[in-house]
């Protein structure tokens, strides 16, 4: 039990530390593929440090919600990142913190970010919040469907059980997981404000979704939100790894496998980040009104995955 709690703490710390690095890696890959000179790999850390040292500028009309929201968002994301098994399978809180709780945590963070964006009352803030909610309410059921496909295979909604079933038992190919993987990829681009749905580097307010919500933030608040965004990307990457490439995560009680698990995790994250950058460079941002169609497709693919599971795998 104590060992489990220690591992849990170590994983959460690792997520906090690695998340900005992952963002830096994705940015670097993207710059390479676009033929630009890349920013340094550690740039996100420098940005965070710079923002943490700056003073906060608050709007006159900002309520306390505006000031609390970054902390809540950051806490939710840190917790979410801790739930996903990245290094080891031995997570003592998994019976309470299963995938449904994870989706709830992500939703809580989103609600507070959207409320804070509307709090100051600027046009762009509420525009961004509405768009974010439009995307979220379509993406959330699809995300649950993806999780349920994995749960049907492993008979459990706890991520450690799912990983154990997929990685440490007899190897089997699951056609339903192929559908779920495509759906998950579409969802994670939408949820992380990546290119087909939103452009993370845009400077044009009218096309922004996520950036429009955080326009009013500055100083350490912005640092917390940027860190939370990095954590969200890390959480989604770790989820993708846990569901679709779980080989290498240390089984329960196997301490010797931990160093190897760390190496494998870093390798997978690097590959995943490069793949994300590649797909972002290859695709163009779609119109906002195409986003419901995109997410509807993701939902249908996830449902199809469940149907295929009943046809082929039962």
């Amino acid at each position, binding site marked *: 039990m104590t060992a489990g709690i220690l591992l849990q703490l170590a994983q959460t710390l690792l997520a906090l530390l690695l998340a900005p690095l992952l963002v830096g890696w994705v940015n670097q890959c993207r710059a390479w593929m676009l033929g630009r000179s890349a920013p340094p790999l550690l740039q996100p850390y420098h940005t965070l440090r710079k923002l943490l040292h700056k003073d906060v500028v608050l709007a006159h009309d900002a309520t306390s919600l505006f000031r609390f929201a970054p902390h809540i968002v950051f806490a939710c994301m840190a917790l979410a990142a801790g739930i996903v098994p990245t290094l080891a399978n031995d997570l003592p809180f998994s019976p309470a913190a299963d995938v449904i709780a994870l989706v709830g945590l992500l939703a809580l963070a989103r609600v507070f970010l959207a409320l804070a964006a509307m709090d100051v009352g600027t046009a762009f803030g509420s525009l961004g919040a509405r768009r974010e909610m439009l995307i979220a309410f379509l993406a959330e059921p699809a995300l649950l469907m993806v999780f349920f496909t994995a749960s049907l295979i492993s008979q459990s909604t706890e991520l450690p059980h799912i990983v154990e079933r997929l990685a440490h038992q007899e190897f089997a*190919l699951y*056609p339903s997981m*192929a*559908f779920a993987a495509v759906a998950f990829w579409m969802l994670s681009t939408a949820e992380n404000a990546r290119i087909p749905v939103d452009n993370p580097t845009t400077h044009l307010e009218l096309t922004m979704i996520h950036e429009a919500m955080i326009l009013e933030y500055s100083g350490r608040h912005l640092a917390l939100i940027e860190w939370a965004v990095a954590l969200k990307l890390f959480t989604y990457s770790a989820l993708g790894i846990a569901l679709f490439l779980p080989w290498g995560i240390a089984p329960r009680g196997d301490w010797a496998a931990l160093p190897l698990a760390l190496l494998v995790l870093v390798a997978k994250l690097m590959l995943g980040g490069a793949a994300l950058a590649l797909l972002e460079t290859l695709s163009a941002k779609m119109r906002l009104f195409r986003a419901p*169609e995109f997410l509807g*497709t993701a939902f*249908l693919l996830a449902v199809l995955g469940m*149907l295929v599971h009943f046809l*082929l795998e039962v």
Partner: protein
Amino acid sequence: MSLTYHLQVVNLLAALLLLIAFAMLSQRRIVALITLLAWQGVALAASTAIVAWSTGQHHLYGSAALTVLLKVIVIPWYFFRLVRRLEMDREVEPMINVPTTMLIGIALVIFAFNLALPIAQMAGTVTRSTLGIALASVLLAFLMMITRSKAMPQVIGFLAMENGLFFAATSATYGMPMVVELGVALDVLVALFVLGIFFFHIRETFDSLDLKHMEKLKER
């Protein structure tokens, strides 16, 4: 679940076939549709070859080779040439909007899976559980033909339907006799060239490939 690995791969390829059928349903660009058709051919040929290898049905190698030759190389090449000659690389809006089409598609898939379950139990092959997927891809291709008004996507839907039927034959009875398969392949090829000629005639008469213009008959 105690399937051997090659059968799991066949199942995976079957799922891929269904995925491509759905991608075709949601695709608006003709060039992308042709590419998807070629990939469906690749999945079909791969699954046929694996079934041939795992069951020892050697004539299936022939049909896999035929699939590669015809559906991955010749037909897409001919279509790309037609698209260039007819200059029709534009987005085409389907008659029903895409999300609705996809919802109908899901309903069709559920229908096909339910329909195929009792039939599959009668088949004696190891790949019988993929019969539902084959049926679903046939129905989805049919849906694509119904919802498109342009001639080219309709023909692509027709070929996708043929792919689904071929897959159904492989999964239910380890393929048709070679003579029948050769006959079907020849039929498809001939139909394709005839349709290609028709495209030019339709465009010459109506100045577009939209088949809506053909709903009204009148003497000139």
